[in-house]
């Protein structure tokens, strides 16, 4: 008993220092006030939370959830076939493909995002090309739209979805597909009844990663969305750095953290089958 406690203490220490303590500070600050210069005033107030229910912030809140959900969905739809293709390729090809998936991480994220600006702006590569070949007469408005933000998010977070799905496909016992075929299932039905349920955990992991990351990402919105598309994370960033309103920023952070947790929980419940729950009950 003593030994196990001792073993677990570094983890507890780590979590307390780097997760629980910062979260606690944010929660505390969210109930404080501030003076005209942005200094924290020690008092208890719910004003910061009350301010959130302004229609402006509520609108941004829903936009943020919608964009994060949409990004997650698109990522699943693109990543699943990609991961499936990679998992079923030969060993050498698998390595090359996984390398391609991870190469973007080697390049600075800001530079990659600015590259999209070069592609999407009015005089950018895409517009010039389309005009040169005569499909359009005047440049399409692509940059600084919600579409551009969505594109940037999907582009940024696709690897987070591909890798977990790939792993779950890799881990699946291929004999199950032979068994399905032996029992009369076509390839499509074997995929639907066996592969898909067997790789749900990979999709779940990927979805949580993509959803949380998208909801917290403000750089892509800043660079590709311009002033018109704002996400909750942009507001939070502004409150902390620009407006020097830490308590309000903290309140928004707390609200979104709770929202994320609730959404992830619901998502897990919806996707998890009775089988997985029975497994947990046993362990």
């Amino acid at each position: 008993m003593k030994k196990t406690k001792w073993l677990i203490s570094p983890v507890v220490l780590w979590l307390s220092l780097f997760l629980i303590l910062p979260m606690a500070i944010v929660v505390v600050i969210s109930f404080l006030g501030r003076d005209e210069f942005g200094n924290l005033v020690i008092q208890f107030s719910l004003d910061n939370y009350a301010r959130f229910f302004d229609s402006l912030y509520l609108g941004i809140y829903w936009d943020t959830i919608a964009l994060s959900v949409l990004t997650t969905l698109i990522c699943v739809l693109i990543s699943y076939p990609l991961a499936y293709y990679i998992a079923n390729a030969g060993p050498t090809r698998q390595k090359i493909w996984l390398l391609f998936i991870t190469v973007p991480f080697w390049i600075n994220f800001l530079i990659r995002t600015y590259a999209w600006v070069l592609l999407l702006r009015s005089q950018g590569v895409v517009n010039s090309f389309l005009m040169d070949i005569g499909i359009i007469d005047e440049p399409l408005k692509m940059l600084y739209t919600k579409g551009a933000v969505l594109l940037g998010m999907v582009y940024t977070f696709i690897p987070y979805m591909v890798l977990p799905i790939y792993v779950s496909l890799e881990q699946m016992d291929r004999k199950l597909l032979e068994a399905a075929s032996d029992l009369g299932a076509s390839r499509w039905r074997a995929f639907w009844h066996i592969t898909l349920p067997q790789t749900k955990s990979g999709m779940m992991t990927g979805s949580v990663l993509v959803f949380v990351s998208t909801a917290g990402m403000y750089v892509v919105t800043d660079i590709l969305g311009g002033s018109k598309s704002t996400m909750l994370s942009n507001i939070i960033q502004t409150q902390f750095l620009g407006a020097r309103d830490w308590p309000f920023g903290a309140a928004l952070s707390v609200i979104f953290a709770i929202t994320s947790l609730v959404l992830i929980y619901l998502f897990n419940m919806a996707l998890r089958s009775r089988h997985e729950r029975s497994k947990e009950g046993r362990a």
Partner: protein
Amino acid sequence: MPMIQLTNIEKHFAGQTVVHPLSLTIGEGEFLTLLGPSGCGKTTILRMIAGFEQPTVGEIFLDGKDVTELPANKRDLNLVFQHYALFPHMTVEQNIQFGLKMKKIDAAEQKERIAEAIRLTQLTPLAKRYPHQLSGGQQQRVAIARAIANKPRVLLLDEPLGALDLQLRKNLQAELKQLQRSLGITFVYVTHDQEEAMMMSDRIVIMNNGKIEQIGTPKEIYNRPQTLFAATFIGENNVFHEAERMFAIRPEKLKAVRDREQKAKRKGIIQDIVYLGNVHKLMVHLNDEQTTVSICLDFTDEDEWQIGQHIGVDWLDADEVNIGL
């Protein structure tokens, strides 16, 4: 009437021949076992019958129809996998239902067939469990129930008892044989366990290095092995070499005789005496041949044998089984 016919089939993997040209006919309702050491090609033959592998050369007929080109999901037979390959996210019932659902059998009959398969395999109390909640032997039963619910013409079994401990194996062997009799369907069984093959099969196909060594009933194979491999792979055997021929004699057909009393065919020294309850065995080193033979003595043998004793080894000419190489 043949249920399965393999005609001159051959299988190559990456330039290597894993199954040499062979033909085999399996009768309706027969329990046929493919027996051999690992890598002898027995599983490959089973997988070709199931439709997971294509023979490089030759044809496969199922109930008179050429199924060589037919994919696995269109063949009217089922395979019980070595490690069961149960669907982990489905209950016992759902696993059994899967094949029926794929064949679009109507709901009422599905229910009936599931109930029957569960009853035959004694899984009734476990119907709602998931595979990970079952023991190895129970999972094995589910695999069989899942296969027989489809009422296949042929059931293929790939070392279905390989992962189980000895006692459970013995019980399931008897159960499987019983099941095969009551269902009356053709069983093609793959194993490397010769005792298992002897106990269950109508006929045994002994395989080695991708070739058939011998086909026969357990009795034929035991009493009249045709090759050295067949003679030594099944049961204990003593192999004798003489100028132009080789022959085998089972330990129970050899007789130990006191050296000076009688004229025996061979002479030797007792190296060891092994008691096995109902029989005991003498291990005798032969003087002229650098081999040791084993002789079974039954419980009626009253002689006092001693290690180091010089004895004669004798047998009846009729018990010599000539074997080729």
